[in-house]
């Protein structure tokens, strides 16, 4: 889907903030993913056009970064760490448990990720980039179900929906 009118405006604000607008590839891909849930082929074309780049370059960048999804994912993205501090604290079992539990659930996507920098919480996972840990298989499922029921606020996939970027840049030091 193309950017909505308000997101297109945000996109133009973002790219104007950088000394060279090519730097806006990552933020605009985040914006597109926030809107559509994943980075669609249309979004690649549109970001390229906005930044005067080729779609091939934008796709090349997009495919390099693990947070950008090029296929739809569930409303809840559960990222389970299995790197070494989690490895010795039950991370792989947690991953297996959740992957099995949500194998056929279209709303929940479970993925294995590399160290997410919260090792004191091992085994740790993120639900839409919100940190939680330490967890067992049971407490993790309780948590995910609480998100599903709306008892916890699940932000959008790339977690930029707070628009902190927008407000920080656009104020421009007028204070």
């Amino acid at each position, binding site marked *: 889907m193309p950017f909505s009118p308000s997101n297109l405006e945000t996109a133009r604000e973002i790219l104007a903030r950088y000394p060279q607008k090519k730097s806006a590839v990552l933020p605009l891909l985040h914006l597109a993913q926030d809107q559509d849930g994943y980075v669609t082929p249309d979004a690649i074309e549109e970001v390229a056009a906005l930044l005067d780049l080729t779609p091939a370059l934008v796709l090349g*960048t997009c495919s390099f970064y693990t947070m950008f999804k090029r296929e739809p994912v569930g409303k809840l993205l559960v990222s389970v760490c299995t790197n070494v*501090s989690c490895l010795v604290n039950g991370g792989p079992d947690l991953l297996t448990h959740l992957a099995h539990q949500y194998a056929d659930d279209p709303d929940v996507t479970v993925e294995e990720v590399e160290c997410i920098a919260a090792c004191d919480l091992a085994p740790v996972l993120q639900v839409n*980039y*919100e940190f939680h840990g330490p967890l067992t298989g049971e407490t993790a499922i309780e948590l995910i179900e609480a998100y599903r029921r709306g008892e916890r606020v699940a932000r959008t996939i790339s977690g*930029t929906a707070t628009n902190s970027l927008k407000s920080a840049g656009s104020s421009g030091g007028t204070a």
Partner: protein
Amino acid sequence: MAAEELRVVTKFLRERPDDSFTIEAALENGAYTALRKALAMTPEDIVAEVTTSGLRGRGGAGFGTGQKWSFLPKDVFPRYLAVNGDEGEPSTFKDHMLVEGDPHQLIEGVIITAFAIQAHHAFVYLRGEFGLGAERLGKALQEAYDRGFVGKDILGSGYDLEIILHRGAGCYIAGDETGLLSSLEGERAMPRIKPPFPAVQGVYAAPTIVNNVETMSTVPHIINKGGEWYASMGVNRSTGTRIFSVSGNVEKPGNYEIELGTTFRELIYGLAGGVKGGKGLGFFIPGGASAPWLREEHLDAPLDMDSVQSELKTMLGSGAIMVFDETVDPILVAWRLSKFFAHESCGKCTPCREGSGWIEKVLYRMAHGYGRPEDLDLLLGFGNNLAPGLSWPPGMTTICQLGPSTMSPVVSLRNYWYDEIKERLAADAARRGSIEVRAAV
């Protein structure tokens, strides 16, 4: 073994965990007083003060911060400051805490540094996965703009600065100094050949200083209390304090800010409560996944960046200390780390792109009972093309440090368990019988 923290950059966020990230609390605590002081100084004086402090980069390489700033070519503008908050070295979680817990301290350090190097744009490259971090830093930045600490004519000094919060998108190598620059330019985060160093040609081919979040967060304290005060702490050329992230099989995993020169034993047993469940220590990794491992006999060594490298042949790196108890299989840990490196290799240099994948495959079979008797020697053989010399610091056949780092776990296996592993592999092979599947010739 008595040990206590010496808190400088973590003092405020520990004292007021509920609201340390708000501007009101930060101002009560004296935030931005160092900025006022710095704006009254000359940029050269600020560089000199930081050089006096002996502060060294807290991201991993440990390069002198003031020295790095002084490498900027004279009279070449514009210049940029890029702050590295892409914390991805496995088991490091200190910058994560600093961004979430005390964003104003970071912003103040960024403004002072940008003023010192005469940059008018600063980028804070924050790891994409840090949702709350981005939210708090974004809000703090907005507050700093609103109060005139950032933007045009900062506090009436005539100095202008724009700070751009730039979020990554999931990539370890974007945390490499030059990988970060590529990423900041909208491309794959592939590291670049040095020289030219970023101070000469960085983002947009302009002079750029890349500094870590913890380094930036330390700068306001040095300006407030003086370089000599900072240099009075620490040991030898490792001055001041550092945050160490302790995790794995310990009773109290967490971030501990301690004076450099404290011993591993004081940190692991004194502060982190020792090995979980009273078990014996198997081994520990002192500086993130890239660092060669240490064991019991190294516990009384001081946390001194130079002696750890020269005497223990490893590094303090990013300050991540991973502790493993005696029941943990070192081959399994080596395999998992190699899987990380294979996943994160950017693919630019052939030895790393190919080597990291093969190391992972061979370690996988070794860890899971399918190893062949010659496997460890096989790894050490082709691994010598990735980390020539198989020691630390390693030789380089790749542009960045990721390549040789892939061999650190294997070198550690060789250093401590060579004979044991050979026996285990032989036993595994014998148990499986003589059937070997080989490709037809």
